[in-house]
C-alpha cells in the first residue's frame, strides 16, 4: 500500500494526476474526432465523387492502420510538417508541438474516423422522406437540418458513439510513447522504478475499468433520456 502513498515516497498522487490527464486527453480526442466526423460524414454522403473519395480515404486509413503507427507518424512528422508550412511563410526556426496536443490530435483523428461511420449509419437510418419535409414546412434548409434532423441523428448515434468513446479512452494508453505522462506511462514509470509491474499494471487496469464502467453508465442514461422525452 505504501507504493500508492501520496507525496514524495509513493506513487498515489502521480497516478491520480495521470488519470486526470487520461480522462482529459480522451475527452479532447473524442471532441476533436466528433468535429472531424461532422465534416467527413458530409463528404461520405455527398453526391460528388471526389468528396466521397476523400471521405473514404480518411475512414479507411485511420481505421485500418494501427494506432501506434499513426501516433508515431504525428509525433515525428507533425512538427516537420508544420515547420515546412511555416517556412513558406518565412519563419525559419523550430516549432514544437507538445505531447498532449500530439496525442489529442492523433487519437482524435482516429476517433473521428469511427465517429464518421457512426454518424453516417445514423443519417442513413433516418427516414428519407424527412429530408423533403423542409420544403413542406417552408423552413430554411439549414434550420430544418439543425432543429429536426440533428437531434434524431444524435439520438440514433448515441449507442455507437458510446462504443467510439470506449475505443478512444483505451487508445489513449498508446499516447504513452510520446512522453505524455498519462495513466499508462505513469504506471510504466512506477513499475520500472519499483520493479513491481504486476501491482502497477493491475492497478491501472482497475482504473481503466472504473472509467469505462462509469462512462458506459453515463451513455446508457443519455440514451434513456433521449428515447423517452
Amino acid at each position, binding site marked *: 500500500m505504501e507504493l500508492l502513498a501520496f*507525496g*514524495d*515516497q*509513493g*506513487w498515489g498522487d*502521480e497516478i491520480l*494526476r495521470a488519470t486526470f*490527464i487520461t480522462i*482529459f486527453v480522451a*475527452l*479532447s480526442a473524442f471532441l476533436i474526432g466528433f468535429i472531424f466526423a461532422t465534416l467527413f460524414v458530409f463528404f461520405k454522403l455527398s453526391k460528388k465523387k471526389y468528396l466521397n473519395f476523400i471521405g473514404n480515404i480518411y475512414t479507411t486509413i485511420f481505421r485500418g492502420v494501427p494506432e501506434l503507427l499513426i501516433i*508515431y507518424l504525428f*509525433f*515525428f*512528422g507533425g*512538427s*516537420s510538417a*508544420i*515547420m515546412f508550412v511555416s517556412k513558406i511563410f518565412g*519563419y525559419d*526556426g*523550430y*516549432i*514544437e*508541438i*507538445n505531447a*498532449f*496536443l500530439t496525442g*489529442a490530435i492523433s487519437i482524435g483523428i482516429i476517433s473521428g474516423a469511427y465517429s464518421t461511420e457512426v454518424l453516417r449509419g445514423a443519417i442513413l437510418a433516418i427516414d428519407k422522406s424527412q429530408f423533403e419535409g423542409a420544403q413542406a414546412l417552408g423552413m430554411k434548409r439549414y434550420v430544418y437540418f439543425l432543429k429536426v434532423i440533428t437531434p434524431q441523428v444524435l439520438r440514433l448515434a448515441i449507442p455507437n458513439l458510446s462504443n467510439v468513446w470506449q475505443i478512444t479512452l483505451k487508445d489513449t494508453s498508446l499516447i504513452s*510513447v510520446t*512522453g505524455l*505522462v498519462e495513466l499508462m506511462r*505513469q504506471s510504466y*514509470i*512506477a513499475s*520500472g*522504478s519499483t*520493479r513491481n*509491474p504486476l501491482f502497477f499494471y493491475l492497478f491501472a487496469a482497475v482504473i481503466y475499468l472504473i472509467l469505462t464502467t462509469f462512462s458506459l453508465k453515463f451513455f446508457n442514461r443519455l440514451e434513456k433520456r433521449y428515447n423517452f422525452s
Partner: protein
Amino acid sequence: MKKITKIFLSFVTLFFLLSGISFSDNIKIGTEGAYPPWNAKDASGKLIGFEVDLAMELCKITGDTCSIVEQDWDGMIPALQAGKFDAIMAGMSITDERKQKINFSQGYADEVASFASLKKSNIKLGGLKSLSLADIDGKEQKTLDTIKKTLEGKIVGVQSGTIFQNFLKSGLVGKVNVWTYKTQDEVNLDLSSGRIDLSLAAAVATTDYNSKAGNVLKLVGPTFSGGVFGNGVGIGLRKNDTKLLNSFNSAIDTARKKGIIKKLAIKHFGFDASM
C-alpha cells in the same frame, strides 16, 4: 444550459493550458528518464540523475535557460531532428554510426559495457578484466572467441538502438540471439525473471539496478570499450546547430576545470567517470 456553458468553457480553457505549440526560445534538452544512474525519474515524477544535474550546471555556465524533456530512447535521434528538443543528454555514446546523423560535443563521461547474468548462473565469459575493441591482440581475440562459443544457444537482452545491440550484431561474437527492449528496466526485469540468459549494458546501469533489487544479478566477463562502443558519452546535437555545439563544448571545458563533472560523477556513480 448555463451549467453546460460553464463546463464547456472550463474544458476549453484547460485544453489550451495543456496544449503547447512553442517557438523555441529556451534550450530544451532531451533525456530518457529510465537509465539510472545516468538519468531517471523519482516517485514525485521529477527527472533526476547524473545528466539532469550536469545539464543544469552546463546551462548555468552558458547562461541559458534550459528545460529538460522526456523522450523514449528508441525515438531519441528522430525527435532531436524533428525539433522536439535541441540537445540529447541521455547516456548516449559517441559513435561513428550516430555521427553520420548528428553532431556530438566532446565527451563528458566514460562508460564501459558489461554482460550480466543471474547471480546463480554459471556462465563464464573468459578471464580478461577489460577489453578494448580499439586494439585486438591474441589475448583479446581469445576472449572474444570464448564469448562467441558461450553465447551459442543463449538469449541476450539489450535495450534497442544501443551500442550494446550494435556490438552483438557486429559479428565479433558470432551470430547472437538478441532480444531488444524499450528500456533498460525491462531488460533487467527479464534477466531477473530468467527469460533471458544474459544482458549487455553499461556496467553502472546493472550495478545500480542490482543495488536496488536485492543483488540478484552479477556482472560477467570483461568490461568493453572502444570500437563500436564509441568514445565516451557526449551531448547529441543537430548537424546545423554549430552555435550550440561550441557553447556546450566550452561549457564542458569549464565544468571539467572546476571539477563539477567529477563531483557529480562521484555523487551518482560512486566513482570518477568524468572525462
